[in-house]
């Protein structure tokens, strides 16, 4: 299961990155594969990674997700603006150093 893990921040309300957890009881409970995220910030995706959606077509895994574009200052709470991203890999996305091709869908 790919999920978004979030934490509170100071100058903006929160940040998030994508994590992976595995179930060995047919989906009743999950354990993280590690303490950190499998998809985290990078030069082109500096904050707010989330909404992971994974699917395999043929031999290739595809992960659709969002990354933060900007925070909008409003009269009330700041609002995040996201860009839609897609990554593809021949291996499932299990760690930050795996080879992947990133596609930008804006």
């Amino acid at each position, binding site marked *: 299961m790919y999920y978004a893990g979030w934490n509170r921040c100071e100058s903006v309300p929160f940040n998030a990155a994508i994590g992976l957890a595995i179930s060995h009881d047919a*989906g009743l409970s999950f354990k993280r594969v590690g303490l950190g995220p499998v998809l985290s910030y990078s030069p082109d995706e500096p904050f707010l990674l989330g909404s992971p959606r994974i699917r395999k077509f043929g031999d290739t895994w595809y992960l659709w997700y969002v990354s933060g574009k900007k925070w909008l200052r409003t009269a009330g709470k700041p609002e995040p603006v996201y860009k839609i991203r897609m990554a593809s890999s021949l291996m499932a996305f299990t760690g930050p150093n795996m080879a992947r091709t990133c596609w930008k869908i804006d």
Partner: protein
Amino acid sequence: MFEWKKLGKVFDPKDLPASSWMKEFAQSPSVLVFRDFVRVYFCTRPSPSADGQYMSYLSYIDLSRKNLLEIIRICEHPVLDLGG
């Protein structure tokens, strides 16, 4: 082009007994289909802290495949613990 007909609310943690660990919110549903039921995972929250801050947890309900509006099981504790 798909046309969708709304069938109405299926689940709200506010409708659960006061003793439930889930109090508010059922967000971002994601589904696993089993033979006899559909498991709908979602994010939910216990009551906020005194200063109004929430923590969110992963939960699920199981819906009967014979009637997708019928809840046959409700998760009794979070399926994933909080991160570090």
